[in-house]
């Protein structure tokens, strides 16, 4: 069965790129434009991985990660954060919020796929 990945990003360009790349690699992809949408989408869809941008309107990525981790069912859900900053403090912040890992933008498609495989097979 295909693994389902949710990409959360307010940038349609970024969502499109993530979706296209991952679909090409055999994943099913659903999209959300902010943390709030992601929360409601995940309530009904079972996802195997969340890839979230950090800086988003309505609900930002770190809040999303914390909220997801607070839900027992998602305690072990892999969550990757997309960050433009290769900044260690950002990664530490994400990690303490509960992020599984990170992807630094810009990334090339191969990199994205390999990171995704690393955390959700």
């Amino acid at each position, binding site marked *: 069965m295909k693994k389902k990945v949710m990409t959360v990003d307010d940038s349609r360009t970024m969502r499109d790129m993530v979706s296209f790349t991952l679909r090409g690699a055999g994943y099913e992809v659903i999209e959300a434009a902010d943390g709030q949408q992601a929360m409601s989408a995940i309530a009904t869809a079972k996802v195997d991985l969340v890839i979230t941008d950090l800086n988003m309107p309505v609900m*930002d990525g770190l809040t999303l990660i914390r909220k997801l981790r607070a839900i027992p069912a998602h305690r072990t859900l892999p969550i990757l954060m997309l960050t433009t900053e290769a900044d260690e*403090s950002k990664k530490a912040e994400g990690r303490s919020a509960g992020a599984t890992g990170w992807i630094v933008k810009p990334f090339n498609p191969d990199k994205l796929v390999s990171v995704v495989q690393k955390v959700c097979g």
Partner: protein
Amino acid sequence: MDDLSRFKQTYFDESAELLAVAESGLLRLAPGEVDMDEVNAIFRAVHSIKGGGGAFGFNDLVAFAHEFETVMDGVRNGDIPVTTILVDTLIRANDVLARMLAHAADGTDAPAGTTDDTVAALRRVLVQADAAPGTAVPAAPPAAAPPTHYADDEDDEAGIFGDALAAIQAARDDAAPAGTVPAGTVPEGKLRWTVVFRPKADLLLSGNEPTYMLRALRRLGDAEVVCHLDSLPGLAALDAELLHMSWTVTLLAGPEVGRPQIDDVFEFVADDCDIQISVEAPPPAVLPAGRADAGTASPGVGPAAPAEPALPAVQAAPAAPPVPSAPTQAAPGTAAGNGGKPRTGGPAGDHAGPAAHTIRVDLDKIDRLVNMVGEMVITQAMIAEHLRDLPPGQFQELLEGLEGLAQHTRELRESVMSIRAQPVSSVFSRMPRLVRECAAMTGKEVVLVTSGETTEVDKTVVENLVDPLTHMIRNSIDHGLEGPEERERTGKPRAGTVHLSAAHRSGRIVIEVTDDGRGINRAKVLSKAIEKGLVQPGATLTDEEIDNLIFLPGFTTADQVSNLSGRGVGMDVVRRNISSLGGRIGVYSTPGEGSRFVLSLPLTLAVLDGMVISVGEERFVLPLTNIVESLRPKPADLHGLVNKCDVIMARGEYVRLVHLHRLFGIPKAIDDATRGLVVLVETEDGARLGLVVDEVLGQQQVVIKSLEANFRRLDGVAAATILGDGRVALILDVAGLREMSRHGAGTAPGGPASANSLSGSLPPPQTTPRPTARPVLAERPESHQRQPV
């Protein structure tokens, strides 16, 4: 990265939207009342443009966006006070960003120095903020090339994950070698890696899954995995969410696999797990030259490279957490105003960018859909027409079904049309910027009021509104509004008001630009018109006619051509643009109180509700919106004006009669209006006309087919269509008919004249201003009853 190029268009489309978001946000940004949601929205817009630009390698653009973003970040954090100067700088930066995007879209490099001034201005802002945080310092020194560095990570393709690896490596290097792995037989050309992986017990809770890491190791080569269960607790003490296992993986991999590839597998967990990696190579004697590549492939990565193959090199690393994740360690050289501050600290605004429940569709696809629906409307009308002859009482179900089909066709058509509909706000939202610039240039104070932004109209119409509206607003500010002093002298508020409104009215969209300025100076307009030979000296014109002179080609009242309007593109161009869309424009002015420009446009350019009429053997379609009523006149109602034309007394008003068969040279048509019918029509500016026709056949929706695209332009004809029976019918242009009849009816009252000879005999239209029957447009539509037959 070729895969990414297909997203470029999305990126540019989205960036255009983001630029608009940023611009409207910046225009609302004012000192003292800073809306943080707004600021966040602007920041995000710039941030997203930068992020996407990085993906496509638009380095200049990214570098500039970064400068812009840095300042926005400062504003967001309250480090940079909002001043008028700042807002101006940011608006300029937004413009420059738009230019950079345009260059990126064209695939050209922006000319060197495009961004220099703006970057300098942005950096000045930063330096000032540093000099006196939290306070406005407009007079700070203009900063000689401030040493603003920034962590330009985004450009650093090679550096993706690089510093994370460096951190891991640092941890490795700090650690002392521990233990020795016994040397086995390593096949030629291979390296044997031994990885001992002892995850932290709560690893799963960060979403990491050791299985996938082991699997990833397997992908690198032949791996043998040994699982250690020694610390596995008894069942009673077992916590399913904790990990109690550790693994030893022996990996035989080719020279292309180096330490980075293996480190990469544990990238996210290196800090919390005990990972020991060691490598051994085959004996040196058989070391092939290619093997050295493995060493150079991971330069400086570690002493584990096969550069020292003689001994089983051992590199063990109990990964102590010291260096990498300390939050205090900001990237060196981070921008001054940016600092190590978290980017996402602020409260999340609700200024979402583009709505999420939209899809982006190529306009061609929609056009095809519109066209197909159009054809379907025709087919449906055709079936309906054929079945009209059926004997009543029979085929009841068929007729009912057909009725349903008719209704669904109509709904389908409306739905399809609504896909193309856009609120005019997309045009209106560009106007505050324009007003601001015009006000600055003319030194006038202007308040722009808009209403009816949500009024929807076809996309093509929206697009074509930009230029006319821009010109009309410029015109209102430049010519209409007085300067603040003059306004005070006449008892008006210092700031002039320009009101831009949109509304639906009788199947059309009506847009008004109203100003409370000085109104049209009729004496001046008239004298200018006479001076330019547009009007005969001594001609008597009504006020309305004089006002409308400003639409004549070559007309300008400005004594001096100002920087704004009056650059040779006059209101005549506006009128021409509007007419080409099937629209009309008129002006209504009261001296001393202001002017009102009214323009009306069809909601869509594709389908029309029409009345089919017959003249002789020909069929014509009259737009329903033009029709007031149809009547059969009594002989007493008709009056002939000598050498002029026939008129009819209709509802207490004399209306000129136009015999369509004469105008178009149609034989075998009814000439006597008392035997045929008169359809009373009204043009957009309120002038009335009585069309003499043989018969009114009925109302029908018709699909507009451009005559110009398929044939050529004809006077008095707006377009063509295909009727239900497959015949082609021309759609009449009432205003055009009026023009034709004014020039033609008097000269050829008797015999039929061909359309060609008629249009050829037209005198230049600008010699006579249009007489306007109705003084004020606003009273028009409601005051007449419409009685479509």
